[in-house]
């Protein structure tokens, strides 16, 4: 109980960070997730310049080198693939592609979904209906199949991969934005802006969009894990990223043929995908509890939650 009171009484600026940190400390899993994600970001940013060259360096003597051997360099700690390239270096370079594609796709789907949602929510013209029906069609069909079809026709490349992933995730942002706009446009400040003579464009951009943005950012954070999984599945099926570029999903696919004698080639990248998406999901479920005033006490009280 004392912890709870001291959290409330500290000064507001540092207090907020302190509260977050205190709540995070109580939830060991969420803390582990944060640490893992931080390490991942550091490795993704700092890794490629340092050890990026090793990812494509062939090493005949290290072909199918088993993991956990100390005879070679530390870079071979997780083993090497069929061409003797160290798995650690490839994981770091793959992380850059995987996270980069996912980030670009989430950003694109948030922007297009948000803009189309603003249009569909604010205007009642014919194109508003068309936008909604389009979202229905995209929503009602399994995203992976849709992505496969589009990649089949456009041909696999990184740009197309981002477009496809953004396209299949876009309806979620569109629907949320539209629902929020429908509610916001009835508010007093919008009527005030209209009576002051503001154009629809100004109202949407200056008055409505800033209020929708926080919701969209929350969804985007949640969606990141889904997009990583979707991209990995596509790359695994061979319709995502194409050699010589690779992502974690493509690495799993490469190792599939060598399961019997070199399991580590496809094991590690898959494990990193799992840990990344799991960390993101753990963190977002923690953030949900933290953001909910009725639930936050669960993270603040020292004792285990009573019945």
């Amino acid at each position: 109980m004392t912890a709870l009171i001291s959290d409330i009484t500290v000064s507001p600026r540092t207090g907020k960070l302190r509260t977050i940190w205190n709540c995070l400390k109580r939830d060991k899993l969420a803390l582990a997730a944060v640490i893992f994600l931080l390490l991942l970001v550091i490795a993704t940013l700092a890794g490629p310049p340092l050890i990026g060259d090793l990812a494509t360096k062939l090493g005949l003597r290290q072909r199918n080198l088993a993991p956990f051997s100390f005879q070679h360099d530390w870079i071979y700690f997780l083993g090497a693939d069929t061409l003797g390239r160290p798995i650690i270096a490839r994981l770091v370079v793959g992380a850059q592609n995987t996270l980069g594609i996912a980030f670009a796709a989430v950003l694109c789907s948030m922007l297009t979904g948000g803009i189309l949602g603003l249009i569909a929510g604010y205007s009642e013209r014919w194109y508003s209906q068309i936008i909604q029906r389009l979202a229905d069609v995209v929503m009602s069909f399994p995203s992976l199949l849709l992505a496969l079809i589009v990649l089949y026709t456009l041909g696999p490349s990184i740009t197309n991969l981002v477009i496809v992933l953004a396209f299949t995730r876009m309806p979620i942002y569109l629907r949320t934005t539209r629902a929020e706009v429908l509610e916001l446009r009835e508010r007093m400040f919008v009527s005030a802006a209209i009576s002051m003579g503001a154009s629809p464009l100004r109202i949407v951009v200056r008055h409505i969009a800033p209020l929708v943005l926080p919701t969209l950012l929350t969804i985007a954070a949640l969606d990141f894990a889904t997009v990583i999984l979707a991209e990995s599945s596509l790359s695994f099926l061979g319709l995502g990223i194409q050699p010589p570029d690779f992502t974690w999903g493509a690495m799993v696919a490469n190792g599939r043929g060598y399961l019997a004698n070199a399991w580590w080639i496809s094991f590690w990248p898959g494990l990193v995908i799992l840990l990344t998406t799991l960390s993101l999901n753990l963190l977002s479920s923690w953030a949900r509890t933290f953001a909910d005033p009725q639930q936050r006490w669960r993270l603040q009280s020292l004792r285990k939650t009573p019945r």
Partner: protein
Amino acid sequence: MLSYIGRRASHSIISVLGLLALVFFLTRLTGDPSSLFLPLDSTLEARQAFARLHGFDQPIHWQFLNYLRDLVSLDFGQSVRQNRSAMEIALEAFPQTLKLAFVAMALAIALAIVAGSIAATRPGGFFDRIVSLVSLTGASAPDFWIAIVGILVFAVSFDLLPTSGTGSLAHWIMPVFVLALRPFGLLVQVVRGTMLSALSAPYIKTARAKGLRRKEIIFGHALRNSLLPVITVAGDLTAGLVNGAVIVETVFGWPGIGKLMIDAIILRDFAVVQSTILVTATAIFVLNICIDLLYAVLDPRIRY
């Protein structure tokens, strides 16, 4: 009721048509269709003959009208590779996927209801924490990797289960479990959440006060009232199960519609791709209507 089904069906048909139009125009607008529809190694003469035969020299809106006319007369084109009706091939593979998806979904729902209900009876307890972690892992695991690890452990290392194919009961185990994992993970969270709020409702107090046993309260009272959201999510997940089926069928060599689609895409057998899309889309729309009708059965307050 009947008018509701009719209305929903007509909406679904519009959506299917929209999807087919999308696929149609995407394939036409991105270049020479004969390079897309024919195998990569076909000759120039074959391509020209193909273009003339299928009317690719005509304006695009004519092509679309012709395409629709063929659809109405139930002509879905020939498979270039197998030289028989593409729809026939798709309909042959479809039941295999349906069987797999049905078993996986039934397993996921059953396990999720049991695990989620038990976890909800003591929130924050040991079992609850374990279930939460397992369900989150299941929801975030890349299914292709789980399938590969499954093969590595159970087929390669211990030689307990076959790596791929169909036939005996042993062939079912790994595909079903891998396919069921994600819906299980997501459903457990839904069951747990709705059960938590149901268990704190006044009628549970009443049930407890009149001396019912714990099991009766949980499964007889709380669960029945929290089933509706579970059905909603399960319905959405069943449509999404097609995603998983593509992966699982590819890894385990299951002769379903997902594998057929991937193979057709790789072999550039366009008529088959289009037929599989049509079959899956129709199945999903029928499923959605069934789920809506199921609500009315489960909750008498809902009428259409």
